[in-house]
Every structure is written in C-alpha cells, then in structure tokens.
C-alpha cells in the first residue's frame, strides 16, 4: 500500500524524533515514574521478597520535624542564594547589555560565562581553599592592614552561600543579559524624548520588559540549589546538613531507597509548584 505524501512526512518526522525522545523517556521519564512508584514501597523489590505498598515513607516526612525543617532550610538556602545572585547579577547584566558595546562586550560576556561551564565541583573546591583559616584571605588582609587576623569562613552557612552564588551567578547574568539585550534601544530613546528621567524609564519600561529573563534565571537557580548536597558537604561540614544531603544519605549510606524516593518526590512536587507558579512570567522568556 503506497503511503500518501502526508503519511510519508509523518513517518520521516517520527524516524528523526524517536531516538532522542525514546532515550529521554527511558533515561528520564520512566525513572521519574519508577521513583514515584518506589516511594510507596516498604523495601526495594530487588533486595528482598518481603515488600508491600505503604505510605509510611511519606508519613515519615511529616512525623518527625527533622525532614520538614531540613526542607525549609534548603528552601531558605535557595531563596538566599537566588536573591544574592539576582541583586548582584542583574546590574552586571544591565551594564553589559546597555552600556558596553562592540567587541569588548562579547569578550566580557564570554569571560563571565566561561566558569559556568567548567566543573562545578572543582569550583566549589577552589572556594574551600580560599575560605579556610590561615589561608589566602588572612594573608591578603594582613598584607594591607596592620592587624593579625584569622578568618575561617569554612564550614558555615555563609561559606555555602558564597560557593553557590559563585556557581550560579553567571546563569542569572546570562538570562538577564539576553532579556535586556532584546529590549530595543529605540524604545528607550523614545521614552527619553518624551521627557522621562532614568528611574522612570527603568521602573516602567526596562524592568517589566526584562522581567521574564530575570524570572527565568531566578527559577533556574532556586530549583537546583534546593536539591544541592555536594556544596553543603564540602563547604558546610557539620553545618552542611540539608534536605539534599539527607536524600543522598538514603541512597549512599543508609540504603533506604524507598524513603529516599519519597523525600525526592516531595522535593520534586515543591519544585513543580514553584515552576508552575512562575510559568506565566516565564512564557515570555527566551
């Protein structure tokens, strides 16, 4: 039976798309579904034959205040890091997008983005070196001021924040830069010709138009940080217990996979709620 031309097109599209999307299904979507299923089990089916369905993993979350507290702590960390990144990053993006022109702009932008693409573990490690006591900070300050200092920032909440801000800052600069750069300069010229002072132009024109980019950057920082465990462990030491580290423990140390799955899923639900709430704004983002 000869295919109509229309059917041949559909076939071609299918052939081109299926490998990639099959892979994504097997590697991402099926695992996520499996994890959901898993979270309702009492024990991993491949370790023992004695398992049953239960909601005890989820009730465990609510029964002890430990887990909600840690989730709250992680979300707080996310909020702090996101806020810092936005406050530091947005002006930088603005300067790059609006004030610096030409080749130097491209070069600077590239320089800012480059670290983002290198290994985040290694970058956190570099902060571990810098922040430790009797290290470079002490020596630099001692070289400038006539005081004897011993600043040890390691293994503290601020250390974790610094490391995470350093990791994710280029991301928010990228999204804000794209959004700001897309604002037509002639719009600003028009506003100026109508007599508007800078702060009015900024609040009523630039900020609203760049908001989708800002929101995109904020969301894409908030979400990963909420699940981070590597940075807290390295920079936080004993202070570095967060929701993410607890989940990690379930899989790596305690081997209570169903509980880990349930905790993961709760985090995923929170993340999806946040993404959902932000999506109207994000829809306009590039």
């Amino acid at each position: 039976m000869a295919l109509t031309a229309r059917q041949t097109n559909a076939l071609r599209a299918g052939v081109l798309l299926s490998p990639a999307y099959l892979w994504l299904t097997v590697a991402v979507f099926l695992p996520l579904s499996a994890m959901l299923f898993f979270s309702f089990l009492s024990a991993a089916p491949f370790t023992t034959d004695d398992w049953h369905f239960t909601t005890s993993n989820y009730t465990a979350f609510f029964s002890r205040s430990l887990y909600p507290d840690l989730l709250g702590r992680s979300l707080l960390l996310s909020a702090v890091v996101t806020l810092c990144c936005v406050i530091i990053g947005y002006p930088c993006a603005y300067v790059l997008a609006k004030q610096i022109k030409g080749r130097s702009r491209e070069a600077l932008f590239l320089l800012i983005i480059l670290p983002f693409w290198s290994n985040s573990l290694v970058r956190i490690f570099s902060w571990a070196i810098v922040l430790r006591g009797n290290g470079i900070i002490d020596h630099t300050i001692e070289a400038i001021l006539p005081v004897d200092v011993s600043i040890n920032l390691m293994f503290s909440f601020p250390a974790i924040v610094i490391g995470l801000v350093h990791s994710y800052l280029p991301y928010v600069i990228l999204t804000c830069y794209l959004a700001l750069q897309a604002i037509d300069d002639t719009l600003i010229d028009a506003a100026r010709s109508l007599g508007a002072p800078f702060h009015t132009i900024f609040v009523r024109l630039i900020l609203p138009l760049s908001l989708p980019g800002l929101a995109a950057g904020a969301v894409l920082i908030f979400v990963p940080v909420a699940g981070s465990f590597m940075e807290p462990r390295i920079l936080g030491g004993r202070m570095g217990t967060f929701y993410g580290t607890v989940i990690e423990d379930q899989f790596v140390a305690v081997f209570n996979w169903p509980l880990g799955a349930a905790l993961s899923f709760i985090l995923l639900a929170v993340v999806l709620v946040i993404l959902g709430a932000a999506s109207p704004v994000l829809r306009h983002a590039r």
Partner: protein
Amino acid sequence: MAEVEVRNVTLRFGALKALDDVSLVFPDGQFFGLLGPSGSGKTTLLRAIAGFIFPDSGSVLIGGAPVEHVPVEKREIGMMFQSYALFPNMSVADNIAFGLTVRRVAGAEIRRRVGEVLDLVQLGGLGDRRPHQLSGGQRQRVALARAIVTRPRVLLLDEPLSALDKALRVDMQVELKRIQREIGITTLFVTHDQEEALTLSDRIGILRDGRLVQEGTPRDMYHHPGDRFTASFLGETNFIEGRAETDGLHLADGTLLPWPDGKRPAGETLTLAVRPEAIVLSSAEPDRSDDRAVLSGTLQQAVFSGATAICRVDVMGATLKVLVKNHELADLAAGQTVWLSWPAARSMVLREA
C-alpha cells in the same frame, strides 16, 4: 510536458479555508497566470500542486495521473521561489546541476546540459561564481536555469519577479516568455500584479478568498469580465448605477444606456461598466444613435499623466474616469459640461458580485 489539473480541491489551515472547491485545468505547454489579491490562495494552490501541502479533499493530477501518493521529489516539477532559494554553499554551476546530480546523471552529460541552459538564460561563463556574488537579475536567471535543466513536466513560478525593480522586471518578463516558448513547458505563474499576468499569460485564472472567480484568455477576461471584482481587478473600470430594463440601463435622469448585446430578459440585477480608455470625451454634444451610449456630466479634474491625461467627470453624483490624449488638455477646464460617449458594444454587463 504535461497537463495539470486540480479537481474540487479544498484546503484548510485550521478554521480558514485557503482553497474552496477549486477546479482548474492548466493546458499542456501553455503559460497560465494565477492572479489574485494577497490571501486569495494562489500560492497555496501552487504549493499544493508542487506537493508541499496536501488538499483536504479533491485531487491534483499531473499528466492525467493523480499525485496524492507521489512525494514532491518524484513529481518531476521545476519550481522557482520568490526568494530564489539558491544554495549558498554551492557555485552557480553546482546549483544548476543539483537536480541532475541527484538523478545520477553522468558527469559529462551534466556539464553539457548546464552549459546549454546557462547559454539559454544568457549567463554563460558565470558557472564558477557563488550566488552572493551575483546581482538580483542574475540570481533570478540561475534559479530559472536550475528549475528547467532537469526537463520537468511542469514549471511552477511563485511570484518570481516581485523582488526586482521595474525596469529589470519588464526585461525579465520578456525573457521568461521567450524561454517558455522555446522549450514549450507547461507553466504556472503566480502573481498579484495584473499587468504582469495580462502580459505574460496564454490563459489567466483569478482567485479570491480561495475560490476561482473566473478563467480565460487575457483578452476575454479583460473585455468580458464576469463580475465587479474581476472588472476592477483587471485594469480600471467605471461602474454605472441605474435601473436595469429589457432595452438597457435607465439612469436617474432618464438617459438610456443600451446593452451591448441587444435586449435582455427583465428582472435581472445588473451593473453596466465601461473602461476609461473606451470613452470619448467631447465638449460638444455628439450624434446619438442606437448603438452608442451617451452621457453628460461636469468635468471635475483633468490631470496630465505623460502619454495621456486623466479626467474625472461627475455624472449625477458618480465619478467616471476617462482618458484623453494629452494635447486635448488645453481645451478643457474644470467645471465645464462635457459629453461622454462610447460604442454600446464596449459596455460590459456584470452580474452583481
């Protein structure tokens, strides 16, 4: 060479009917102009014949055989795009040879045919250039050469001249016609420029809102348009309102304009129309006879327009446009009473449309 036919083709884009039950025959070897305002569906029809889009109902036939199951690459068509679509990564010669290369024609044969067609479009010797090194007119000719070198059954042209400036466009019209005559290929030419269509085509079809309004030879369509839309789309027309009776159109002041084709049955809703170039304008009342239409009115404006002068005459509230020779301007003054007359045979009777 083959005849192309579309039968009852309907095509929707979402809720919009881009083509509505269109049936047309494009005769073998003829140059057919598809004309219409933007959004009329003419490009849609062309692309449906090419095979890039598919009708929801109806069929497309090339050489008498339906082509629903035939993909674009097997329909043996040649197509020219408005933007020429020359492959930027290939030389002119490679661009033209592309259709032959994919058909696995032998290298020597390819070189011979490419050389032949380059001479045909008068671009001999430019084979090694890249598209970006050519002028607009040259690119257009490369696009044409590329489309015809494979000896397709049908040539489809999608507004190929609209990107060119006026002088170049007129030259290319002549070229296109010459080449088409020489190779005798069935050609479908889409354009929104009615003058271009009238000049080039052996037959014309007018589309409006996805429907075929009328088709025929340029002269037929020009002198005998079927309705108001066609009459005003092709060239310029004056429309005259009045009461339709069996012997002619009766105007408000009692003037009778006889029908061009004798008596007509009563009860039809008809409009009389006449082209500006058919009307004779005079300051003195002309002789009346049964086979002439005569009107009087007030000259509002007479404007010099190069070879002619354009006059606007107010006749009982309606403005008629008349062309006069440019040397007659001197005798005319705004506000004077003038007489318009023309042979009744040149009146056009239109259905209400």
